């Protein structure tokens, strides 16, 4: 039977995947891809809840918002990556150690 938990599990798996990508990849743009996956997981979560619990359109609307936000965020993130590249001449995440004590 397709029920809420199965959607939640899928969303959870997407989240973990995105998290793994963020943790494991050393390329900044790859990390941005991971962020997209996480956002997607969250959107799926919202949509699942509106389908099964609340029959209005809030969750679906929220997904649209998330897409817009993801796009804006990606733009900002890429701006940061470009700035980062202009300074450090590399997009390896381990070169961002300014906060290291």
């Amino acid at each position, binding site marked *: 039977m397709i029920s809420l938990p199965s959607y939640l599990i899928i969303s959870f798996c997407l989240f973990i995947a995105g*998290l793994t990508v*963020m943790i494991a990849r050393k390329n900044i743009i790859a990390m941005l891809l991971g962020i997209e996956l996480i956002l997607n997981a969250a959107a799926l979560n919202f949509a699942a809840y509106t389908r099964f619990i609340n029959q209005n359109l809030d969750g679906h609307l929220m997904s649209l918002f998330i897409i817009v936000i993801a796009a804006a965020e990606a733009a900002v993130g890429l701006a940061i990556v470009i700035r980062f590249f202009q300074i450090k001449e590399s997009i390896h*995440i381990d070169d961002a150690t300014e906060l290291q*004590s």
Partner: protein
Amino acid sequence: MDYTISSVAPIVLLPFFAFVINAFLARKGGKATVAAVFLACASIAGSSIYALKIFKDFVFGNYAADYYIHKVFTWFDLNGGGQEFAVNMGIYIDNMTAVMLVMVTVVATMIHIFSTYYMHHDMNYGRNGRFFVYMSLFTSAMLGLVLSDNLFSVFIFWELMGFCSYSLIGHYYEKEKTGNASIKAFMTTRIGDVFFLLGIVALWTHIGSVSFVDLYAAIANGAFSGVTVLGIPLATFCAVCIFLGTIGKSAQFPLNVWLPDAMNGPTPCSALIHAATMVAAGVYLSLRIYPLIELGNLNYFVACIGGITALGAATIALVQTDFKAVLAFSTISQLGYMVLGVGVGSYNAAFMHLITHAIFKACLFLAAGSVIHSLHDHHTHEHVQEMPRMGGLRHKMKFTWFAMWCCTLAIAGVPFFSGFVSKDRILGDALVMATHSPKWIIPTALGFIGAFLTAFYMCRMMFLAFHGKPRDKEVYDHCHEEHFSWNRNLPLLFLSVFTLGIWFSGSLTGQGVVKVADAHHGKYEWFQTLIQKPVVSKFTTMQREDFSGMDTRVKNSAEKSHYDHNHGLNEEEAHHVHHVHKIGAIASIFIALGGIFVAAMMYLWNKWNPGFWVNTFNRYYRTLQNKYYMDDLYIKGFIQGLLIPFNNLLSRFDMGFYDKYVVDGWAVVVRYLMNVSKWFDNLFVDTIMVDGTGASVRFFNVILRTIQSGKIQFYIIMIILVIFGYILAL
């Protein structure tokens, strides 16, 4: 008359304030010094006005001889409220105080006036008024002593006067012998003062108070019977110790060496201090503690000391050639008479001799100053003091000659003069004691021989200086003719007026005849009624009065005792006493006139040759010239023989042993302790606490700084872990 503190305090405070102001004002020189001198004279004159007022109230108020005013305030209190350790200060005024106050203030005023003449040229009134500064302080101390009611404040003023004496004797301090003389005076009186203080402490320990009134009450209550100190009865011990203070201050026999050297000071200072007041303070003290002396059976000892002093100093004065030295030794001799009077129990006569002696001796010293000042040696630019260089001065200095003759006749004991009244009475009482028991013959004989010698050497001094032919032509020619100047001659004439006997006895012959009426018994001599031995039984119910309060006791005749002209004896004994007194009076007259006659034969008419006597008793003559070798005894015997080797021994012990081991030894100990401290500091503080803290911080730092790795992925992991942990904990 109600006495508050404000009617008595100015007596002491006026000269004291003059001292304080002059201490700053007089140094400035010029007009400031003149103002300071004027202030000093004015303050003592003001004191004399207050003193005269007290005198008028007491003497003409017909009070009994034992009337007194006693006011007390607690100076400090160690016990906090109780009277056990309280030190009470106060004033005590009776007839004796009143007469003494008048004498001191009036004589001091005259001396201050004379000093304005004498010290005028000594660098602007005595080194810019320094002389007057110390004179003011001295008079305030003396007046404080006269007014004080307890031994402790007597001691305070006593020491203050000792200091002033030191400063005044050492006035010309650039001369070495003057400096030595001032130190000698201070040190010699100090020896007496140590024993005085010991006596005060012994008294305080056993009686609990040092006030005179408490002392009399304690004597009356028998607090002294059976108490011994080191095996000596307490009364004897205290009386001896306090009397040793008198021996020191009044230049009695063992401690008389300072007074002749004190003549190095300026003559007015000698007149005030060493004739009239400071040396009289010792006798005044003895008079105040007289009941204690009587109780301690010390009368014979006191009389002997007085007699030895009187005769010894008189014999030394025979051979002196310095004008002031004769006067110095005569002072010592007359002080011996006063102490002799205290010893034989003639309280009244001893005090009267104190007063009369103060007046004529001060006048003598001032006149001597006047003589010395006018004789100027142009070669050494000093004033001539040696009698062999004087002679025939009566033509040049008539007023001084007249004043000096009045005083010389007084001191010699010629009838109609004051000295006769007092000295005759002392000798009469001594004779009475001699008729009681043979051992009293010794002081009596010493007194009578001393009287003969006194007449002799004083007239010798007068004849050598004023009569005959001038021995040093140059000095005589340069001596100025004396004109009457108010500040030189007026004090002399004023004081010489009071050398007449009529002031003290109320009659021309000075014996037992009437002046002032006594309401109960008809007429008696006024001075004799005034002053009596304190009757201790009257002091048992003593009430202290508060210092600021008014005198509330009843003062009319209901309180006073009548004057017992028989002095407590029955008629037959009183008749015997009068008889002996008459014999003594006649003997005194013959002795005095005899002394003057011998002096005249030797020095005025030159019939007998004094050189004969000098040659016959040559060795004795030389002993006299060396003052019985007393100075040598003290200097070579005590100081060089005993004290300096003792001092060397002590210093060897002190520097050799004590300094080296005990004091320097501490340095070794301290150095060892320092090393221990260094070890402790290094180990515990530096290594463990300071470095250890750093090491522990570094240790944890290595662990903890991995959190801030700067790696973003690490941060993400941490976030996720913490969130999961939080959710799991829920």
